[in-house]
């Protein structure tokens, strides 16, 4: 039985070797690899996915500078730096001195008092720069100048990003 099987495999292998060459095997393998590599280059419409990835967040998003409570902010948004709009990213600490202003929320049409605390202890985040400072008049009122490093009262005065904490509703 085993002898018959041996003979059968030997014949089929010899037959294959006589009909094909190593070069033709390499050629076939090469074609296969090249074909696989070229597959992603075929003109398939991927624009929908690309658009979804690049679309900027809307004005209702805390990652958008136009978000209502950022009306008097000057700095990088912590929500783009590993924190949130109200919490500092890991490795940084909130400044004890802050810039305080009021912003109008178009959602409920009320004015809110917002504290802009700088997060300190790491170098500048660099993401989502947001410099609105609405109604700031530094030349007329130097004490009302927000273009300051509010980390100056921290042990590590390196500025990283800014959070916006609502302190309450502003009464008329």
């Amino acid at each position: 039985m085993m002898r018959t099987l041996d003979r059968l495999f030997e014949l089929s292998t010899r037959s294959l070797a006589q009909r094909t060459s190593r070069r033709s095997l390499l050629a076939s393998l090469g074609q296969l690899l090249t074909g696989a590599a070229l597959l992603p280059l075929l003109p398939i419409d991927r624009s929908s996915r690309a658009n979804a990835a690049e679309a900027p967040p809307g004005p209702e998003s805390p990652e958008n500078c136009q978000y209502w409570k950022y009306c008097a902010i000057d700095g990088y948004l912590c929500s783009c730096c590993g924190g949130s709009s109200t919490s500092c990213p890991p490795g940084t600490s909130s400044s004890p001195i802050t810039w305080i202003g009021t912003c109008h929320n178009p959602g409920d049409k009320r004015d809110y008092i917002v504290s802009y605390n700088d997060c300190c202890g790491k170098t500048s985040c660099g993401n989502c720069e947001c410099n609105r400072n609405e109604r700031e008049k530094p030349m007329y009122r130097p004490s009302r100048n927000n273009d300051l490093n509010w980390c100056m009262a921290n042990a590590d005065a390196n500025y990283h990003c800014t959070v916006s904490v609502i302190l309450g509703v502003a009464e008329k």
Partner: protein
Amino acid sequence: MTGRAAAGGQRGAAAPALLAALASLAAAAPAHAGAEQNYILYCRGCHGADAEGVAGKIPPLAGALARFMRAPEGRNYVLRVPGAANSALTDAQLAGVLNWLAERYPAADAPQVAPFTVEEVTRIRHTPLADVLATRREVVRALAASGAAPAAQY
């Protein structure tokens, strides 16, 4: 920054008698209406949520303001210090904020301090201090000689 002026103590014209009555009322005890909000908008950013300041950098108001207010030289200094004198607050609003602070954060060793009147604020506030730090040291030294005094290191 969007400072929002809260209601002060000044109103439009009315019958002279009523006006005089209101004025005397205001002079006796300036309204605290909006004082807390004015503190938040114009003072809290540096002096803190509980007027505690920042050790070694920003002087506290809690306890300290009442100590300044117990003597004429301290009252004079407090009304002329740049943060108060140059603020966007009206004289009535400034009196309201300072009186609210002194009431909310009294000094244990100087509990009875007279509130500021609007007239007092108007009379003193608008004369700038030539040397803030030197004046502060002088005032704190004088206060220390006569009783409870604010911290000297600021």
